[in-house]
């Protein structure tokens, strides 16, 4: 069981862990942007700097995943269930999208870039989280 907090879906512990996750996520996204820029302009960036930025992006990505797992483990059982169902939906939609969208592209659909599947996966997980809250606690639950 978790520490008390008892407002909405989040105990105090879950709120703290989610805030930590968002901080790591923002850091990882910024590092990704920096690493992408360094790789894209690698001819004018020292190789050591490019390597460092890419390694930093990896390290922050790993820490972001660890902080999300800490959030899941610290969440109360209903929130954990909702989040895991949302991850399942996100993974399923993302996996099938990555397999099936190339076929649509062959038929003339626009190219969504290398991040397309990841964006679809995250969007589907967010929808899954909303659906879970609706399913277990009714429309408009917060």
């Amino acid at each position, binding site marked *: *069981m*978790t*520490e*008390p*907090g*008892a*407002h*909405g*879906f*989040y*105990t105090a512990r*879950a709120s703290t862990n989610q805030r930590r996750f968002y901080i790591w996520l923002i850091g990882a996204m910024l590092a990704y942007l920096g690493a992408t820029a360094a790789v894209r302009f690698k001819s004018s960036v020292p190789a050591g700097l490019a390597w460092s930025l890419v390694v930093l992006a990896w390290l922050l990505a790993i820490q972001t995943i660890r902080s999300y797992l800490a959030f899941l483990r610290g969440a*109360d*059982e*209903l*929130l954990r*269930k909702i989040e895991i169902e949302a991850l399942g939906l996100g993974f399923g939609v993302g996996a099938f999208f990555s397999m099936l969208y190339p076929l649509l592209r062959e038929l003339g659909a626009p190219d969504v870039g290398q991040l397309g599947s990841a964006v679809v996966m995250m969007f589907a997980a967010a929808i899954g989280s909303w659906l879970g*809250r609706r*399913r*277990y*606690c*009714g429309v408009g*639950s917060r």
Partner: protein
Amino acid sequence: MKNRLRVLRAERDWSQADLAVRLGVSRQTVNAIETGRYDPSLPLAFGLARVFGAAIEEIFQPEP
């Protein structure tokens, strides 16, 4: 699964938030259990029994 959570809570004049704090879960978890949308895990069911000083089967009954 039917349950008597709302009645037991009302007898003690506890809000959902009060009960949630006693159990260490969120208020929405109490709400979801109370409205029958979510069946709690065994540890949480034992927690409810402890908080209300009742046996689990006095709180939860299977639907016919």
